[in-house]
């Protein structure tokens, strides 16, 4: 498959943030701050691939998606979708794109699933028999056919998300943009949706996907771009990203206590790169993940520092890096923080 479906060059988006006065009667503060949401990023999405776009909240993912799908005007830079510049020719660019934005309220809840699809078909120039056929096909394919004539308000979250996906597929676009498509779904619905996404890829469509779930990105994506503070900080296949981290060891500790003092103490150990922790409600213990660049020499220091702080080590293991570790290593935080 030759060529690129999406080409993003020097893309930048700035927002003006007005400083609010404490009291409305005070003299207006004219000062405006510039917030850079997307900072001159460059990447290409190959035709037919699933491109995973990852980043913590506020990193610039949705801003990028909205610029690609013409909802937001870039401050500078270019986006080419299937050869069409989205700023200069948005309507033509949109004929190539189907988008599912984050959140479930993107369809009409007072219309049935079928009526929603027929409406959006017409808004893409598909009417009459052709619209009915496409609607029937998608309702069946996404297992919505049995409740196709009920209003969307009566659907489960998973069904609503499938209607949104069917809406994006109604005009058979070359490129599908999915912003957190499995967010809020139960595990079974999420698994079904991931299977559908892979089937869509098999049809030869390009998929640009953002997700909060690392396993999902790992399972689905051919390549992954990681964005943080508006900049692309890594871009490669999931395997290559993990291979690059191989020189780093991931040490998992299960501890009976965890304090800021211990954190500072551990951070002072040479070769420690990142430390993240979370409290496990079930075990009532703290799970601490430590990235070290020189495993064998650091392990003893790590154990000594922990024990000398009066903390009991309940479990200790060294793991192969996952995509989540790649993310933590690059950004210093977990994806869901």
């Amino acid at each position, binding site marked *: 498959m030759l060529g690129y479906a999406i080409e993003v060059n020097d893309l930048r988006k700035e927002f003006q943030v007005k400083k609010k006065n404490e009291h409305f009667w005070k003299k207006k503060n004219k000062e405006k701050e510039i917030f850079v949401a997307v900072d001159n990023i460059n990447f290409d999405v190959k035709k037919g691939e699933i491109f995973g776009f990852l980043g913590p909240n506020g990193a610039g993912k949705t801003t990028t998606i909205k610029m690609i799908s013409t909802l937001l005007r870039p401050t500078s830079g270019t986006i080419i979708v299937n050869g069409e510049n989205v700023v200069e020719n948005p309507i033509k660019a949109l*004929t190539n794109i189907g988008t599912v934005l984050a959140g479930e309220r*993107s369809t009409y809840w007072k219309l049935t699933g079928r009526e929603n699809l027929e*409406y*959006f078909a*017409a*808004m893409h*120039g598909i009417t009459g028999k052709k619209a009915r056929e496409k609607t029937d096909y998608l309702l069946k394919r996404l297992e919505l056919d049995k409740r196709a004539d009920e209003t969307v308000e009566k659907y489960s979250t998973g069904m609503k998300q499938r209607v949104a996906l069917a809406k994006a597929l109604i005009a058979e676009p070359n490129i599908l943009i999915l912003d957190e498509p499995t967010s809020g779904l139960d595990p079974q619905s999420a698994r079904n949706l991931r299977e559908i996404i892979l089937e869509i890829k098999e049809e030869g469509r390009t998929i640009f996907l953002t997700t909060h779930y690392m396993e999902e990105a790992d399972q689905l994506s051919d390549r992954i771009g990681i964005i943080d503070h508006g900049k692309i900080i890594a871009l490669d296949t999931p395997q290559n990203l993990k291979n690059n981290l191989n020189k780093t060891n991931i040490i998992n500790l299960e501890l009976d206590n965890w304090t800021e003092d211990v954190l500072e103490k551990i951070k002072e150990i040479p070769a420690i790169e990142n430390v993240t922790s979370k409290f496990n409600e079930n075990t009532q213990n703290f799970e601490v993940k430590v990235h070290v660049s020189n495993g064998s020499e650091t392990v003893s220091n790590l154990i000594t520092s922990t024990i000398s702080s009066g903390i009991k080590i309940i479990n200790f293991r060294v793991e192969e890096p996952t995509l989540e570790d790649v993310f933590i290593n690059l950004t210093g935080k977990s994806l869901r923080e």
Partner: protein
Amino acid sequence: METTIKKPSVFTAMGAVFKKEFKIAFRYPTWFISMLIWPILLPLGYVFTAKALSGTDTSSLVSFATLTGTSDYKTYMLIGTVMWSWMNSILWSFGTSLRVEQVRGTLESNWLCPVPKISLLLGYSLFDMIFSIIYIPIIVLEFKLVYNFHFVGSPLLALLVLLVSIPAVYGIGFIFASLVMWVKEANSMVFLVRGMIMVFCGITYPLAVLPNWMRNVSKFIPITYSINALRAVITEGVSVGDIKSEIFILLIFGAVLMTLGLLAFNYTQKRVKSSGSLGQY
């Protein structure tokens, strides 16, 4: 996978919006009942106030007829309230249409369709116009039954006045819809605009009773001319020649307000696309 999608025409999109809004409207049946009752209730307050002021003596009607050219004060007031109700329904439905889509969460979904965005608003205006064509005769029939509404002139000429008012009325609607999408607050703006129309356009009284400065303001509101022309046709039975200046002024207002409406829509569209506030509440 290379599929070619044709751009839909503005008319296809307008038709789709019309059909969609029609279906949604009939899934909220209670609003239709209130729409039938409201035009009857609204003038009652004015009619009873007029009765209280005039008392049993008909001499006050002579003074009213001197100012208005008719002693049929009920019909006189009903014409004003019909025009006010029409404008009010346009502000609430068409004027807030984009805001409603924003609150529903569907505005961005529509913006993602490969159609000129104005077709969404045009689709809403088509729905509203067809609704008005059905609704206004129903109001007139209700007035006939409840208030003994008296139609002296030609109904076709009255219809012509309504038709030439459409561009101006919808021009205001376009400007209003764009502003509401921008400022994201509909209620206070509807109250402000319909309040201005209520006071300055002589809904229930002749403009002659207004102070000079208010009469001057009323000249810049197209509804004033629609009400004047309709009253002349319905209560006095005038011919088209007698209201040609009103028709001409309404057409000029229509051209200016439609142009301003389209400019306001384009400006708002650019602004929300730049600020990223399109889908925000």
